[in-house]
């Protein structure tokens, strides 16, 4: 499913989107398939499926640990695409990974494999727009969106360039830093949302872990909240994971609907 279709569907229902991240293969491909099911059942509208990289510089300790577990368990790009193809949930799947894995497979082949396995968006946190022409071109050819980030230190000129190159949604990093849950979500969310003038849906991420925070972000004007580390923490706990994931997704989705 394409990302734009999902946002249209939600618009008709007057809902905002919950975008959930899990790291593929943490702790196994079978488990990930279950977890995606639980997240969607709880209300996730889009699922970011992380393809683990050995050196994830944009991520904090939570997601690095998840990547290490997944790599240890044998996840690799081949098994990743098999896993993606086997996920039957009716939500857009977005691949989040680092550029070396894409470069190594070949940009064209990587994007083609995404499209063939039902992935309709790509986020590459270490690929700024200046280096992204190849992947944007390949993505256009194969019907995959390229999602770029904007941050509190991105100036207006740069934002315009990012809006022009990006598709699917704009990933708004609400504060400086790496991924991970934070107690003080987003004093800067409002400020940055005021600067992000784009027709693309505006999704806010980094540091959101509960329904109250999600509601604050939505109230500030976002079209979607992105939650990763809070889900990954549940997975790491190995305790009643399916149920907890579904519950947290439900709580967050409720925050997106008020």
């Amino acid at each position, binding site marked *: 499913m394409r990302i734009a279709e999902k946002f249209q569907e939600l618009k008709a229902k007057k809902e905002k989107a919950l975008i959930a991240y899990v790291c593929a293969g943490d702790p196994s491909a079978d488990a990930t398939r279950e977890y995606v099911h639980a997240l969607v059942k709880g209300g996730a509208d889009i699922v970011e499926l992380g393809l683990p*990289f*050995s*050196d*994830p*510089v*944009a991520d*904090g*300790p939570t997601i*690095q*640990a998840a990547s*290490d577990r997944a*790599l240890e368990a044998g996840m*690799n*790009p*081949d098994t990743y695409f098999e896993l993606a193809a086997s996920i039957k949930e009716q939500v857009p799947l977005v691949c989040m990974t*680092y*550029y*070396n*894995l*894409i*470069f*190594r*497979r070949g940009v064209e082949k990587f994007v083609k494999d995404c499209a063939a396995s039902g992935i309709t968006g790509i986020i590459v*946190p*270490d*690929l*700024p727009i*200046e*280096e992204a022409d190849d992947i944007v071109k390949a993505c256009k050819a194969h019907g995959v969106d390229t999602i*770029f*980030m*904007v*941050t509190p*230190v*991105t*100036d207006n000129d*740069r934002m315009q360039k*990012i809006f022009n190159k990006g598709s699917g949604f704009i990933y708004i*990093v609400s504060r*400086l*830093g*790496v991924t991970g849950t934070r107690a003080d979500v987003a004093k800067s969310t409002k400020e940055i949302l005021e600067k992000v003038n784009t027709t693309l849906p505006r999704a806010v991420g980094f540091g959101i872990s509960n329904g109250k925070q999600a509601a604050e972000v939505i109230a500030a004007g976002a079209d979607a909240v992105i939650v990763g580390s809070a889900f990954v923490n549940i997975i790491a706990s190995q305790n009643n994971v399916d149920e907890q994931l579904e519950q947290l997704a439900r709580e967050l989705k409720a925050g997106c609907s008020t």
Partner: protein
Amino acid sequence: MQKPTYGRFGGQFVPEVLMPALKELEEEYERYKKDPEFLRELNYYLTEFAGRSTPLYHARNLSKKYGTKIYLKREDLVHGGAHKLNNTIGQALLAKYMGKKRIIAETGAGQHGTATAMAGANLGFETAVYMGAKDVERQKMNVYRMELMGTKVHPVRSGSMTLKDAINEALRDWVTNVESTHYLIGSVVGPHPYPMIVRDFQSVIGTEVKQQIMEKEGRLPDSIVACAGGGSNAMGIFYPFIADTDVKLFPVEAGGCGMQVQGKTAMHSASLGAGEEGILQGARTLILQDKYGQILESTSVSAGLDYSGVGPELAYLAQTGRIQPGSVNDQEALDAFHELCRLEGIIPALESSHALAYIKKMADTGELGDLVVVSLSGRGDKDLETVLKLKAGACEEKL
């Protein structure tokens, strides 16, 4: 503004949040590198604080043994015991001109961390250094040295707990504190403009060599040999000679315990010789990686060469054939270490011992010519414990 690439290598593969900081750094550097006041101050610190210029020393006994005239560029005599301070004092001064209050750095063995601590203390910065927890354990003295100079040392417990992970963690700190903080990268690696800035600050080595060899010999050397991990002393000594195509340039990488790969670990650190194109820590370069693009851990007896990537400009120069990469293994480097101690009364760093070992390896081929300059990038006092503890057959145990 200079293009951020060397052929197809280099570039800026970093999170969006760092792009403004890289742009600022590039603009400020372009401005200050021509600023007479900045250059005067830089020169002052290089002379009075770092102790430059360093001698170009005719190693008579070594020359006699290998039948060619060998000069050693004595970077081991720079304050702190290695070439690292050339770069840290330059970047710290730049950070001061840029109005930054804090500097951070990564370190492997602790040499770059120590040089950062020196520059940070002297120029009045709050200084933090990231160091793999394993390296913290192995290099207690360097940790203490840094702490003595007021630097906060953060042990990094993620991944392999070595240099690569320390760089990742320093990048994360920078992403979080980018407005107040300058990330002081220690080698010619990372996103543009770092490879250029570090090369420029280190090229004082080659500039001095050129002048000194003309004074002593009235001609340029036939070849220059330097060890290369990330490649900062190699780029520093090579760069002023790039246009002098009669001068052969040999970067020497760590052959470690052999050229094979075991699981997720390469038994060597030879990215120029055996690496493949990829993107690591901000730049497109040659890296040690598996078939999927996951980064391999590297191996070397010398912590300063133990790195899975290499500077993008070196990758480019190797591709064009201007430099000719070679490698020597742990044992060859150790033999060269002992040989220099005995023949010349100089204890070289294990890193620099790789360059020395290459002389021995190549002596019979005639490839090096009659007049050779070796970059003696650091002194070996820091390595005595490693050498003492090293048992015969250390590599066999790893294989």
